[in-house]
């Protein structure tokens, strides 16, 4: 458990409420044009363009093995990692929250940190875990 006020941005995917640490690049955007890529990678939906940047769109549902039909123009949550921009495909962006504590779910191996919103466990997606644990680029 860590006790220090931290900010997160929350979103809905399928029926789940999830969160990502808030950073300077965090914003929700609508992916108007998505270029599919000729690769066999379940996590990568394609590449889009936003405000001068290329954004690699990720299938957030595949992180959790969810049965989710991605719309043709998905809502995405923008974040940066190691010099690149990424968009997590989501159903709906919700809000930013400030919480005093982050908890650890010991029974989970990945995305095992969570915050409490209205007593509900909201699991956190951290960029580092997405790329190192899921091995997106392998």
């Amino acid at each position, binding site marked *: 458990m860590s006790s220090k006020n931290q900010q997160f941005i929350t979103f809905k995917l399928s029926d789940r409420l999830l969160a990502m640490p808030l950073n300077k690049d965090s914003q929700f955007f609508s992916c108007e044009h998505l270029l599919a*890529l*000729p690769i066999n990678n379940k996590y990568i939906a394609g590449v889009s*363009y936003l405000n*001068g940047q290329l954004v*690699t769109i990720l299938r957030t549902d595949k992180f959790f093995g969810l049965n989710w039909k991605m719309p043709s123009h998905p809502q995405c949550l923008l974040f940066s990692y*190691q010099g690149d921009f990424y968009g997590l495909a989501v159903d709906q962006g919700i809000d930013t929250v400030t919480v005093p504590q982050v908890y650890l779910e010991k029974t989970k191996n990945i995305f095992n940190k969570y915050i409490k919103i209205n007593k509900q466990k909201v699991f956190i997606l951290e960029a580092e875990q997405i790329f190192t644990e899921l091995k997106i680029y392998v």
Partner: protein
Amino acid sequence: MFSEKYKDLYLSTTQEQLKSIADVLLLLERNPKNPEYLQTLFISLHSMKGSAATMGYKDTIVYLHQIESLVQAMINGTLLIDKNTLDLIFRSLDTLHANLQYISQHSQELDFKQAIADLEKILKSPVKIKKSDKLSAQHDQTALVAPYESTEMIVPAKDLDKIQNLLDDLLVNIMSIKGVAIKSAQSQILSKVVTADTLANNLRRELERMRILPLEQVFSNLPYLVRSIARDEHKNVELLIEHNDISLDKSILDELLEIIVQLIKNSVVHGIKSSQKNGQINLHASLESDELVVTVSDNGRGIDWSKVLALAVNKKVISVEASRKLKLVDIPSLLFHPGMSSKKNMDIHGGRGVGLSVVKDRIKKLNGQVEIASTLNKGTKFTLHLPLPLSIFRSIAWQVGDWSLAVPMAYVDRVVKLPEIKDFSNDKYFVYNKKRIKLLNLHTILPLEIKAPAKYILFLNIQKNIFALPIASSIKESELVMKKNPSVMRLLPKFKGLAISSSGRVNLILDINNLL
């Protein structure tokens, strides 16, 4: 104290100053009797001391003062200017480099106590030189304390990236407005849009020019590096550089420099023999059609490929059975596998076994290729082929299933609309004006299940030969803005990159060499 806020500026300025000092030391080494070099050295050290004082790095100030005193003693003639003294100053530069790295990571300076004490010892027992060997000690005292002045400003590359992205976005929007203005046939609006487009393109060109650096500038650090490594390896090695006045975008140069440094280290550590008196490394860069070709060659011991194969088996990179089937041309690729070092001692310069695998990764990141040629007892040559980046270019674009593809107009010889849709699945050639032109197909780079019948033939000029690419969908001419490859493009090595059209759509740019 300004330290945290101005740390980046201090680091980049001091890096530049250290480079200047290294250049002067190399000149002084060749011509120790030239008094101007010592004066320049003194002024540079003094200036560095001033920068360190601004940041409050007290130990750095003391250390620099000691080195200044050393140089002053050399100017006064109380200290011999010989290999030992110069080695001492070179080693001091290494310490100062290490200090910069430490400050970068920890926002505080190194512990200089031992280094300062070592220099104190030297200063307390200087070796006097003969009168006849003294330099002409006349120098302008004012010049010695002249402050470091510069009309230049250091701008972080990431800030230029941000401006580049904003400008790209502006250009894409202007391209879009131009399209609307043309359709609306409003000549006044079109005229203004064309002016805006010209201004924005000029701005982009100026920004690109700011990012471009001459290879000469980037390569100028390398003789010092070779000297350092050769000294540590007790070898005699000279580096000869031919840069052909080439300039490149800084982002490519940064990657290229890392590759070249690794290859040079390899040459000094593994290539040149200790017994060699004429150790030489040649670094050559040239432009050939649309690629940069860089060679790093040495006149060392060469590579024994049978030993490389044996090592690969020993290190379990390949199995014994696989090694027996491996062709001679495929053995060089084993060198790029991590863990292939033959050096028994893992020292600071070589022998960790990961150097060439890092080279391969970096080259792949630049969409480039590397070749190795080697002859036993004659030397080894690494040749890098790196494609030059595109900027804004006209293209032919079309759709294949879900994929938006484009080819730069520079490669397009002509486009022919077929009188009727034709299936080229079983054909190797397209006959046009009684000439047989070899057919290409996109199956080499795209996972296409069906070959759709073609409406158009795109004639492509690849390496001075004409090839025909059948296209099933409609095509259009499009102006595209090339963007820096995101990491995902590592999974698509057969494509040149991604570019944006005026409608904000992303297009995959074909690397037509991969269609062959």
